[in-house]
Structure formats: C-alpha cells, structure tokens
C-alpha cells in the first residue's frame, strides 16, 4: 500500500465508516497515520476526559462532525452528583480555535451553558447540526443565540435535556431568511413557544422532514402545522387533548390523511383514548411508534391501535399494555426489531403489568427482534431460555426486574441459567443489563460466552469477587462496565489492572472496594484516572485522612491521555 499515492490511500480510507476501523489503520505506519488524520471528517470522543480538546483539534484539522460524551451512564439515575463535571465549553472553545469549519456537534450527558451555545453560534459559519442528548445547564436564551446566528442550520435536536425556560421568543429568532431546517426537535422544552412563529417557520422550511413538538403545542396548532408540512417523515405531537367532536379534531384527521410520508410518531402527552382514532390512517405506514409518555392509554386502546401497525420496527410503550397487549404486538408486528417497555407505576405498588409471559409472546412472534429494554415485575429462567431460543439475534438485551434481587418466582432459583442461555445463544450481544437474583455463576457464563459484549450493567448481583473476575478475564471486547450494590472488592478490582486500559471506563458504587484498593490501582496504572466520588454531605463529616480500609462509595475509573482533570469539584478525589 505504501507505493500508492496518498490520494489513493485516502480514497480507500473513505470506505472505512467506523471509527474503530479508522483508528486501527492510523496505527499501521506513520504515512497512514498522516493520511488518515488529515482526511477524517467525523470524530467520536466517548469520554470527554480521555483526551484534551486541543489535542483532538490538532490531530484532525479537517474535522466536520464532532461527538462528545460526558458523564458516566449511571448519571441518568442520579448516581453521579450534580456538579461532577462534563463541561462542553472547553470543547467548543478548542473547536472555535482549531476547527472553524465544524458543521455538526453532538453532545451527550454534558453540561452546556448559554455561554457555550453563544460561542458555538458565532464561531462556525458553516454550522449545520446541533444534537444535545441528556444535557443540562442551558436556557432558551442559548437556543435563541443558535436560532439567530446559525445561518443554514439544518438540524436542531434536543432530546431529554433539562432546559430552563426564559421565555418563548427563542423560536422567533429564526430569521425569515431561514429556510434550511430539516429537523427540529424541542419536545423536552417545558415552556410555550410562539405558535404563529412556529407555523411560519415550518411553512418556509420546505425540506423539513422531522418535527417534534413540546407539550405546550395544542392540537389546533398541530393541525395547522401538519397542513403546511405534508412531507413530514417523523412527528412528535404536542399535547393531544381535544374534544373528539371538535372542529380541530376533524381538521387533524384530515391533515393526517395528507401526510403520506409519516413513518415515525411520538409525543402523545395527555392523549385521551378516543383521540387515538385520528392516527389510524397513518398506522399502516409506521415503522417507529413511541407511546411511552402516554399513561392515559390503557391496554385495550393500545391494542386497537397496534393492530393497525403491521410495519412497525421500533415500539416504545408503557407496561399498561399488559402481557395480553404484548401478545397482540407479537402477532401483528412481524418486522419488530426494537421493543422498550417502560414502567408506568414506578414504585411497583400496583398490579403486575407485564411479566415473563409478555416477553415470551414477543419472542415467539417477532423473530427479528434485536434490541430490548424490558421493565417487569418478574422473570423466570424458563422464559429466558425460551426467549434465547426464539431470538438469537439480540445485540442489546436489557432486563429490569423492578424488585432488586428477585428470584425466579416458580422455582425460587437465581436467574443465572436464564441469562446464561441468553449469552450463549446471542452471539452478537453487545450490550447487557442484568437484574433479579444472580450469583457468581451468571458471570461465569458471561465471561465464557459473551465474546462480543461491549457494555455490561450490574446491580444487586453476585456473591463474591469471583463474579467480577470472570467478567474481567473473559469478555475480550468489554468497553464499559458499570456495577452498583454488588459484593465486589479490592481483590477483583486489582486482578487484571491492564484490562482497564482496553476499556473506556469502569464504574463501581456501593460495592466493597476500599480507598486502599483504589490507591493501589492508581499507583499501578498511571494512564488511568481513578476518581473517588464522595457524596457532598459525607465529605463534611469525613475525617481529614480517611483510612485505606474505608470503603469507597463511588468510584469511576477511565483511561486517559490527559492526566488528572483540572475541573474536578472538591468532592471528587483523583488518585
């Protein structure tokens, strides 16, 4: 390959779409490293503290699209204290200096201030797409800056962020000359927007294909919007309450009938069962349906709706669909690839909504299923073994039995065999979340069979260090390991320290790891940051020099080229 001119090598590299492949070719030789780094357009940084922003910009001056992730996954469940870190500003500043040609920025679980958004809006003349997922720290003022200054913006996608409402005027900041929007998602905003401005905006953006409204948008407004956007492919409705004999409702039905391209529906806050009839005409074309924010829709109405949706590939619902409802999904949705069933009654004090029966039904009907997130009240080994046999193509399998440490209700046994069957059967499994009563045995199975596993989430499981050791020594492709409330201690932590440099990160909370163990790890592995996260209140009570025997409440370990970060709050100790 070295006797090909560089342009040819670069052209060949163009065919490498995955980051991993490009990372690997860049290590072959200096020539390839050079060609690769100058031609890389899409850069993915899985941990914002693994590398300094400036270094990324220096290495990839031609970067057009940047994705950065901040907080560890368990931050989603309030396990990471609020001011832990993950700031977007340093990345935006570095990009403004080093890669002014930036066109797309994707941030996940990061703290994004209005200041950063303002800087972003002014620094990149070709900026086209901003995607913020599970971020916080900004207000609608920041959005106003983006709308005002980003000429040619194609995509503004805000998914599940905590955004402070500073008024409705941000949407009106899109100038009249803005006609380039293709995707607009503001579903997570709590405040009102100027409905008139929105209607005019969507009308002039003729390439708009994806629109997700927030709860404040009424059905009346939705009907008017749909009348102007008949080519929409993805729609997130606003509040879906309307008297079903009202004129607005009739107009809505009429507008839906015209939207022949609609493939994806979400939203449906406050939807009353009768109003669901308005979408029956679109259901046969739907590939994606998200009803997970519609607790008012009970099983029977859901079932009536789903019977129309035979092309569905992705379905997100609440567990009020019930086992019987899932059986209907199984018989209707033969193309189903991804299913998520969320709990409607979070503390499990109501009647059991879905059980192992629903999952077994799904597995028998939906042979193409490859991604599952299932919250249920109980699970049996027999059911998991059946599911494993029916659906060998799982790449993501996340099971959450609401009662931590609950055994198989039929046999009172742990669920080791059930999950063992899953990892044995699903050879392409990349992500796994465990729950229920589990012993070290399940980890033996995982270590032995889950060769492609990249992410493993463990809670209230295992009996001894052996469990964690099986995983660390077995899963060759493990990248992220997160563990809570499990009896794994220093011996497990230190058994294979080199492993952590092959992984992105390790999280352990409420386990048996001690301060001494963490220090030992940090001493052996200088290219890891070993963060000990103390809870804010506890750090006041803590002694000046806690002993090495002291158990660490939360530990986050990650490989890094950047050394200890300088933005850590006082309750985080980096060893």
């Amino acid at each position, binding site marked *: 390959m070295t006797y090909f001119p560089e342009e040819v090598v670069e052209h060949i590299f163009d065919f490498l779409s995955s980051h991993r492949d490009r990372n690997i070719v860049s290590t072959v030789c200096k020539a390839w490293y050079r060609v690769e780094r100058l031609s890389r357009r899409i850069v993915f940084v899985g941990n914002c503290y693994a590398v300094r922003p400036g270094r990324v910009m220096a290495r990839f001056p031609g970067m057009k699209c940047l994705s950065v992730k901040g907080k560890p996954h*368990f931050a*989603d*469940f*309030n*396990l990471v204290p609020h001011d832990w870190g993950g700031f977007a500003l340093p990345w935006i500043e570095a990009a403004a200096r080093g890669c002014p040609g930036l066109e797309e920025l994707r941030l996940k679980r990061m703290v994004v201030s209005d200041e950063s958004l303002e800087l972003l809006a002014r620094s990149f003349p070709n900026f086209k797409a901003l995607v913020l997922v*599970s971020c916080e720290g900004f207000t609608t003022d920041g959005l106003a800056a983006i709308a005002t200054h980003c000429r040619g913006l194609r995509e503004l996608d805000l998914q*599940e*962020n*905590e955004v402070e409402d500073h008024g409705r005027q941000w949407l009106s900041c899109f100038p009249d000359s803005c006609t380039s929007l293709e995707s607009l998602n503001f579903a*997570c905003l709590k405040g009102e927007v100027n409905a008139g401005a929105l209607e005019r905006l969507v009308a002039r953006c003729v390439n708009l294909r994806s629109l997700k409204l927030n709860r404040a948008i009424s059905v009346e407004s939705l009907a008017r919007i749909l009348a102007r956007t008949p080519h929409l492919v993805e729609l997130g409705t606003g509040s879906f309450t309307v008297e079903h004999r009202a004129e607005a409702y009739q107009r809505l039905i009429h507008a839906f009938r015209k939207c022949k391209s609609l493939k994806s529906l979400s939203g449906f*806050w*406050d939807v009353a069962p009768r109003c669901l009839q308005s979408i029956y005409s679109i259901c046969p074309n739907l590939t994606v349906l998200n009803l*997970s*924010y519609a*607790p*008012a829709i009970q099983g029977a109405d859901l079932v009536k709706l789903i019977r129309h949706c035979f092309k569905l590939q992705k379905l997100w619902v609440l567990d009020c669909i019930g086992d019987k409802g899932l059986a209907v999904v199984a018989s209707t949705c033969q193309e189903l690839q991804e299913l998520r069933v*969320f*709990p*409607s009654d*979070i*503390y*499990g*004090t109501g009647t059991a909504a879905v059980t192992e029966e629903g999952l077994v039904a799904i597995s028998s009907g939906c042979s193409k299923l490859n991604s599952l997130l299932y*919250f249920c009240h109980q699970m049996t080994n027999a059911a998991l073994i059946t599911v494993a046999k029916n659906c060998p193509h799982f790449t993501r399998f996340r099971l*959450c039995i*609401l*009662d*931590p*440490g*609950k*055994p198989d209700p039929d046999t*009172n046994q742990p669920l080791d065999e059930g999950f063992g069957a899953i990892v044995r059967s699903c050879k392409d499994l990349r992500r796994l*979340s465990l729950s229920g*009563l589990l012993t070290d045995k399940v980890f033996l199975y995982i270590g032995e069979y889950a060769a492609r596993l990249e992410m493993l*989430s463990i*809670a*209230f499981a295992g009996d001894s260090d052996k469990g964690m050791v099986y995983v660390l020594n077995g899963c060759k492709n493990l990248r992220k390991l997160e563990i*809570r*409330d499990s*009896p794994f201690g220093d011996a497990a932590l230190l058994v294979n320290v080199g492993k952590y440099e092959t992984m992105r990160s390790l999280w352990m909370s*409420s386990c*048996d790891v001690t301060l001494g163990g963490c220090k030992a790890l940090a001493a052996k592995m200088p290219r890891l940051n070993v963060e000990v996260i103390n*809870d804010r*209140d*506890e750090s006041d009570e803590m002694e000046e020099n806690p002993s090495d025997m*002291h*158990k660490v*409440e939360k530990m986050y370990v990650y490989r890094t080229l950047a050394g200890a970060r300088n933005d850590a709050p006082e309750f985080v100790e980096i060893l």
Partner: protein
Amino acid sequence: MDGGVGYADMDALKATELRLGLPGSHPPEKPLPTTTTARPTKRSLDDDREARRETSEGGRATSTRATKAQVVGWPPIRSYRKNSFQAMKATAEAAGLYVKVSMDGAPYLRKIDLEVYKGYRELREGLEDMFKCFEGCKGSEYAITYEDKDGDLMLVGDVPWEMFTSSCKKLRIIRGAEAIRGLGSSQ
C-alpha cells in the same frame, strides 16, 4: 457487604441516643431512609437484600417495600422520564371534575369530584352518604337532578355516564312532593 458499624456499636449508640420518651421505652424500628449520605444507608440496603433472600421462600416481607421505594437510582429510569411522569400524575390528580351539590333545605352546599365515581349507582350512594345528616324524619323521597351546559334542569340517569359527566355543571337534590311527582316509573 458489611458496613463499618458493628452490632455492638449500634447498642452503644442507642444507649447515648437523645430522644423524647420514657426511659426504657423504645420507638418501633423504622427502615432507614436510603439516601446517598450516611454509611447506615448501605446497611439497610444489605439488610434489605438479606431479608429478601431469607424470605424468598416464604413470600415477600412487606417491611421491605418502604426501603425499596427509596433506593436511589432504582428502578433505572432517566430522571427526565421520572419527572415527566410526576408532572403528568400531578395534572391528572389536580384536574378532577368538581361540581356543586345543593340539596333543598340544607343550609349549605357541597362539592364532589365526578371523576371519583364510576357510574350512577356510586354517585347516588356517595350523595346519600354526604347528605345523611339532613334526611330528617321526612323519609328519603328525593330526585337527583343536574344543570347541563345549556342551563336546563335535567334528571340524572337518562344519558350514558360519560355524557353526563361531560355535560353536568352542578347537581341539585330535589326533595318532597315535587320530586315524587316527576319520578313516575322511570326509576
């Protein structure tokens, strides 16, 4: 998964504990709230887990319910989703369908939430309960009427329940001769 505090220490701790109550009396054991602050938090999770293991044969101990509900970050649902649910529950509970109820001869009116009742029978029973004290010795001949959206006085019970709840503005219980005359055989 033992925390730093042993059983002996707990007794010593209890002995020096300051609380209201007669000496020798002990308050009932409460499950410790599991927050992310103090070490005893971890204990209660462990105890909870062990209790669950022990009782798994004999069925679930209800005492573990309270602690389970408070385990931080469990079930693993994004805060965004949890907060949305809480907001939705709040609006659903706050909504209600409150209407005034007046009864002939009663000195004051009452208000009821129509959404609480599933049908006419429960409504009648609820109203009877509410106005029991005003029955007097005249007996219980009465008719339940309501004022609808158009302002007309209608007899309760003619239309389907949902239609009734969506059009009822206020209720009026008519008593005495006037009521009986109107009833006829329809009830």
